[in-house]
Every structure is written in C-alpha cells, then in structure tokens.
C-alpha cells in the first residue's frame, strides 16, 4: 500500500499551480501545448501515455485556480476517441452541455459525437455556462459511456477538492489579519472552529477523490461506488467550505468584488452537474443495501 503521488507527479502539481496562478485565463490551446490534454491516453493513440492519476492533479489544480475553459470535459472525452484530436470537447449529461459555445464537438450519453450547436443558458456560475444541443444527430463513437461518466464524475470531485482548499486558504488568510474587539478574529473559537471543520472535511474529501481517481486509473471493480462516493462528499465539502469562508469574511464575503462568490457558485455547479450528492448517495446505498 502506497498512498502518495510520485516525485514527478508532485513536480507536475507545482508546475500546474504556478502556471495557472500566472495564467488563470489560459486558452485551451495553451494547455494542449503544455501536454495537459490526453495525458492518460496511450502514446500510440496520440496521448501522453500517463495515468488518470496524473490527470487528477491537473483537475484539482484547475479547480483551485477556478479555471474556466473546457479543459475538464475535453480531458475526460479524449480517452474515448480512437485518436487524440485537436478539438475542444464537451459532454451532454441530463440534457445539459457545459461550455457549449466554447467547444467544437459534444459527446452524448448515447455515444454520439455531435457538432456543438445549440443555445446557451445563463448560469449562476458565470464561468461555466450550460447549453442545450439543438440536434443530437452525429457520428457514433465506438465504446461505452460508463467509463466516460466515471472519469467525468471523478474529475468533478477532484475539482471540488481544489475549490474547498482555496476557500479554506482565503478564510485562514482573512481571519489571521482582521481584528475586531481588539483581537484577531481567528482567536475566537466561533470563527476558528468552522475553519478547523473545513480542514478536516477537505482532507477527507481529498482522500476520497484520490481513491476514486485510483479506481478509475486502474479500472478497479470498486470504481462504480468509489466515484459517486467521492463526487457526493467532495461537492458537499466544497459548498460547505465556501459557506463557512463567506461567513468568517463578514460583509466583504458577501460582495461581488470578492472572489469567494465565484468559488461558491462553482462548488454548487459541481454538486449539481451529473447529479447532486443525494443522487450519488442513492447509488452507494443501493450497492450497500440491495
């Protein structure tokens, strides 16, 4: 048993974090340049020949940086294609397509590759609009939807961990500086204890997300339970992390100007897309009890 990333993977994390801090709005083409697309696809099919665990690091870091391009959806589709291509991809789940207007093609649950045409709806999370396809007629893609779905949900869980982590950091920074009643507000337990809870939950969420990523990478028989378990816990953790962080920020946390609301809205987006936590837990419950 060895539950740690390798040195190379940790290096990848450092690079990804540094790049996204400098270039939070980087185009998908730039990420492709960096080799971030098709990471887990075998080399003979034009991919990076690494594993989903390497990709996992990128999803988590993209979440932490609140990256808004169609990176995640493209990355989870590419392994389903015969060959890695240069297009931007999205997926259609429950009739919704993230970033519809920013991608070239869409993979549907029926394994059809459809041109990205349709209408975009305004979303709470402005950085990740959802659209509806006007037509679902396209070309059939060989293979099954299930592995795409598992990759997608695991990626959403990983992104949620990045969101939770950042919301926690923002909270820690603020309460360590802000003073009221002559003291740093971080000394008040009503302020510090919720952050301690966020820390504990975020570490638990991280473990689940990595476990799910490992199961996906290894095509483990536990994947169909590990993935919904991680999706449920990580999304709820991210939402709660943002809520607590907003609370300890007081009025400033309630403003449009402060970045927290963006994290909060992304967290809720992540919970909703692909099915809220309760929907995921129903899958887990069925596996345990039926």
């Amino acid at each position, binding site marked *: 048993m*060895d539950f740690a990333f390798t040195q190379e993977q940790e290096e990848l994390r450092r690079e990804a974090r540094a790049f996204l801090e400098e270039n939070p709005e980087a185009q998908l083409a730039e990420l492709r340049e960096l080799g971030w697309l098709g990471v887990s696809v075998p080399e003979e099919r034009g991919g990076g020949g690494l594993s989903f665990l390497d990709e996992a690091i990128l999803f988590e870091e993209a979440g932490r940086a609140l990256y808004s391009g169609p990176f995640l959806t493209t990355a989870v589709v590419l392994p389903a294609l015969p060959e890695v291509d240069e297009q931007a991809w999205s997926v259609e789940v429950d009739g919704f397509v993230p970033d519809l207007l920013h991608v070239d093609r869409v993979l549907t649950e029926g394994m059809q590759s459809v041109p990205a045409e349709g209408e975009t709806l305004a979303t709470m999370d402005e950085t990740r609009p959802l659209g509806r396809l006007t037509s679902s007629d396209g070309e059939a893609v060989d293979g099954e939807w299930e592995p795409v779905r598992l990759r997608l949900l695991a990626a959403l869980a990983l992104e949620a961990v990045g969101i939770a982590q950042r919301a926690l950091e923002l909270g820690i920074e603020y309460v360590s500086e802000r003073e009221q009643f002559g003291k740093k507000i971080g*000394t008040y337990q009503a302020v*510090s204890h919720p952050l301690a809870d966020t820390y*504990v939950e975020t*570490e638990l969420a991280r473990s*689940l997300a990595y476990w799910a990523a*490992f199961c996906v990478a290894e095509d483990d028989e536990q994947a169909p339970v*590990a993935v919904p378990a991680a999706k*449920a816990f990580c999304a709820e953790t991210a939402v709660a992390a943002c809520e607590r962080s907003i609370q300890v920020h007081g009025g400033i946390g309630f403003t449009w100007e402060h970045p927290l609301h963006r994290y909060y809205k992304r967290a809720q987006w992540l919970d909703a897309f692909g099915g809220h936590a309760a929907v995921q837990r129903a899958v*887990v419950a069925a596996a345990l009890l039926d």
Partner: protein
Amino acid sequence: MNLRDTPEEAAFRAELRAWIEESLTDEVRRGRFEEAGRDWSRKLYEGGYAGLTWPKEYGGAGAPYSHQAIFLEEMARAEAPSHLGVIGLGMAGPTIIAHGTEEQKRARLEAILSTEEIWCQGFSEPGAGSDLSAVRTSAIEHGDHFVVNGQKVWSSFAHIADWCILVTRSDPESQRHAGLTYLIVNMHSPGVEVRPLRQITGEAEFNEIFFTDVEVPVENVLGDVGDGWAVAMTTLLHERGTLGFALTAALESQIRKLIALAKERGATEVQRDAIAREWIGLQAVRYTTYRSLTTLIKTGIPGPEGSGAKLWWSEANQRVTKLALELLGPEAQILGGGDRNGGYWQHQQLRSRGNTIEAGTSEILRNIIAERVLGLPRSR
C-alpha cells in the same frame, strides 16, 4: 500510488485471516469484554499479533505499521473484540518505548502484551480536565522514593489495573507545564484506593483513584523528573490515535453491523441516505489514514492530514449508533428490545457520548487543529 496490498502485505493478510478463522469463537465475539477479552488477548499474544509494531526484544513483532493497519482491518471484518490492555497497548506501552529505561522496558512491556499486567491512566483530576497542566496530585521526592498524595478521576479500567501512568506535580512551587513528573505506579501499593463511578451506560468502567502517602520508587520515573509534560504529550499523541487505524477499524465494525441491521429491519429512503453518508465517511477516514501512514513511512512523521481522524470518528460513531436505534424503531426503548445482540446498540449509543469527551474533547481537538495545523492566532 498503489492502494492494493503488496505481495508481502497480501501474504500477511491471508495468514492472519486464516488464523482468525481458526481462533475466534462466537463465545469470544459475543462475550463481555472483561472476561472474554482476557482469553482473546492471550490468544492474540500467543499468536504473535499483540504489539505488532513493538520492538522484538520486548515481545513485539517488529513489524511495519502497514501490518498493524491490516491487522486492525481484519479484526474489524471478523468483528473480533480488541485486546483487553487498551491503555497498556495504546498509551502506556508506546510511552515506555519512547521514554523508558532499559529496565522499565524489560520489566513492563511484554507483560502488557500478555495481559499479565493491566494498566490505567491517571491524568485527569477534579480540577484538571481539558487543562491537564493544572494537575495538583503531588509527588515529593524522599530519598529513594516519591511520596504521592492526591486524587485522579475518570480513570478507565483502574478497578482491574495493576499499574497506572500518573502525571504528578513534583515541584510544589511550580506552575502549569513546569515541575511535572510522570510516574508509573503499582496499583497494589499501600495507600491506593479505587472507587468505581457509575456511568451513563449503568456500568462502572471508570473510577476515582485516591493516593494517600503512596511510596513510588525513583526507578519508576518515566523520562526526567520535572519533564513530565513532554512525556505526557507522547501519551496523548498515541491516545488520540494519530494514525487513526484503530478508529477506522472500530467504525468499520459498527457500520458493518449497521448495514446488517438495515437489511434485516428495512430502511426508509432518508435512512438509506444516512447510511450511505456514514459509509462514505468511513472510506474517507480509512484513506486519509492510509495517506497519513504513507507520509509516516516516507518521512518518519505522520502527516497532518490525520489530525482530524479522532474528531471525525467520534462524531460519526455518535451518528451511527443513533441511526441504529432509529432502525430498531420504538422497540429501541425496551431494554434489550428488538436487537439480536441484546441491547448492543442501546449500550453503544450511550457509550458514544463519551467519544467526544475522552482523549481530548472535540472542542480541544478543534483548537489544536486551528492553532497547530492551520496556524491561526492562539485563543489562549
């Protein structure tokens, strides 16, 4: 990253599983801890499974921590009781290993594993609970021994204990963390009196201990005179289950029973959701413990990610036991009612209220995470 057993770990697991199959009887499984636990503990000792990570020269197996993790997982799977020497194995032993003299190690460690000697922990006092540095039990050096006077409280297993790890104030002029001395005290010494306290569950597992002019030889100081605080911190580190395996195993065993109960009695949608939530939480603590263990193996220090294990576990165990009573329905109010194991869940639910108090209250654990892990400004 590889979350599966290595071939060596798989071999250990297989051998252990076969041993449990052969050794664990239903009598032991269902018996009362104080009697059945002693026989079972002896078997564990004879099988070489008590003190897996302890050094070989003191009766342990010198095995890696990963074996201890596997051992506890398999014990939980088999619903086996734990070793009777809870305090000896979990706290006194590791503290003696870390701070003891060669003679102390030779004299005490193996007897813990074999249950020849049962231990209790004398830390809390009427005036010193969360704030352990307020202890007043005095130990005055007098030639070749200390004379101990004072009172300890909430001391689990003191009524069956042979030895006690005792935090005392050896310098009467000292304040707070200074001037403390950590002693190992023979509970059969003249002047030691134990009075059981009846708990919320109706049983009496914890006790008051009164010390009246008890003579403790100077050889029984653990660590240095006046340095008791540092030694006590080692004990607390182990008590709070830095590594969390034991906690994971305990929760795993509860959740297995909970799932069996839900299958037997049926569960509403809301209860199904709650059960799934607890199972997911269990996997989360399990894998967090593995991460922390990997950090320990690689760096020699457990990672901070494990610091929330006890906090999470204690609250999860409270929810799980309540959920079980809910599955039992109104029968849960009848003593022993509805439950094949005669009152198991009623007892567990009440017992679980102690989980957020013993070994550091949840409030104190949150303080520690806030200050030491997150680096927030100190509240005191």
